[in-house]
């Protein structure tokens, strides 16, 4: 129960930051559009089943879309992110130590290096698909590549300080690892 409320609050907070801060900000450059809301999906607990994760991704994406007036765009990118997440966690996290002792992915549970790989890969997947859909109707391939890389870089630049500034309490679920 506490878990659900915590995650709902996070969703509202990230939605607010995305729509009313990052999107209201004066334009940095035409290639650079920072976004942060998918951090909510990164921080979801390990225990969520892959199928349920897809539905959460769809709903998160649609919520963002309704505010940014682009139905389906972010939802589609979020679905990719949620589809890939279990595979990447499966590769990066040693099963016994993290999934059973920690609640959710964090620099503490996955350790810094794998965690950064986890974040980078998923952010890249999200932005690639998002920008791909945007530029399908419009634009050149060179611009597409630059925009993906620049947006991923600026998003990582925002995410890493957030991880450093707000370390989440990583309580153990069992006493075994304690």
């Amino acid at each position, binding site marked *: 129960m506490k878990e659900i409320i915590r995650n709902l609050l996070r969703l509202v907070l990230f939605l607010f930051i995305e729509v*009313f801060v990052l*999107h209201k900000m*004066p*334009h940095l450059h*035409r290639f650079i*559009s920072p976004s942060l809301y998918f951090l909510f999906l990164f921080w979801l607990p390990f225990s969520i089943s*892959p*199928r349920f994760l*897809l*539905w959460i*991704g*769809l709903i998160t*994406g*649609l919520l963002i*879309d*309704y*505010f*940014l*007036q*682009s*139905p*389906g*765009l972010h*939802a*589609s990118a979020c*679905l*990719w992110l949620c*589809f890939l997440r279990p595979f990447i966690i499966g590769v990066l996290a040693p099963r016994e130590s993290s999934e059973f002792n920690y609640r959710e992915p964090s620099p503490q549970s996955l350790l810094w290096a794998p965690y950064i790989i986890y974040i980078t890969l998923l952010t890249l997947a999200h932005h690639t698909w998002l920008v791909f*859909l*945007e530029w399908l*109707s*419009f*634009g050149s391939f060179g611009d597409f590549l630059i925009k993906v890389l620049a947006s991923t870089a600026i998003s990582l630049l925002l995410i890493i300080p957030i991880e450093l500034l707000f370390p989440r309490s990583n309580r153990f679920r069992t006493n075994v690892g304690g």
Partner: protein
Amino acid sequence: MRNVILFIRRYLTFFTFLFLQIVSLWFLYSFNQFHQAQFLQTANEITGEVNKRYKNFENFFLQGEENRRLHRVNDSLLNLLSQQLVTPDTTRRLVTDTVLIDSSRQYRRYYFRPASVVFNSTNSEKNYIQLDRGSLHGITENMSVLNSDGSAVGIVVHVSPRFAQVMSLLHVRQKVNVSLQKTGDFGTLEWDGKDPGLLLLKGLPKSVPVKVGDPVVASRYSFNFPPGYPVGTVAEIISDKSTNFYLLKVKPAARFNNLQHVFVVENLQYAEQATLDQETRKRIEDSKRTPR
């Protein structure tokens, strides 16, 4: 059959993914094509409410800028008052015309309605603006939107009962008929989705003298925009040797980042003009098919 079911059960996550992906892509493309996706109507009412609350809060910090803009408009209007003009003392006198038909009677062509902006974006290639007035307040599609100082902002593309969606000039599908203020020659204003500080003016013949800094205004041929209202100023002239037309870069007069209070302008003859235009095209094309 059993194998098929087993196969589906084994890859159920993947199929869920495929299904949801198709649903979201369907949302995306049906919206872009028709602008009329039904769910947007309800979503508009919910997100519009949130946007309105946020805007109320944000307005507090932007009042200074808005006041300055309104003051400038008031200033220019005060200068138009008849009491500021003095009739020179001459022997000229006023003669009453005896023609029976009142040729000076005027009819109204444009109707202005105030509205405030509740959502705005300049960051994507397709930027929309949301206003807090909708069909209940008489807003319909194809009305033009001007900033509080009269500069062009966009065209209403979709309305719900209490909110309206405006396709901003910063939208890659936007095409507006504009003209140079000095000469009156017209061209089409577009946007290439790159720099929100520069619009593109195409179709202006090279025989027209253009200088950097020339004002660009709404054309009198536009169905949506009232003529003579500022759109921007020429910022750069690109002269392409291969065509007879200029490619002009235009700095927009409206600052899209801090839109607050706007005017929604209705062309009261829009329906008549548009139907006449369509029927003419239809008639000419039909007569082509059946030679008389």
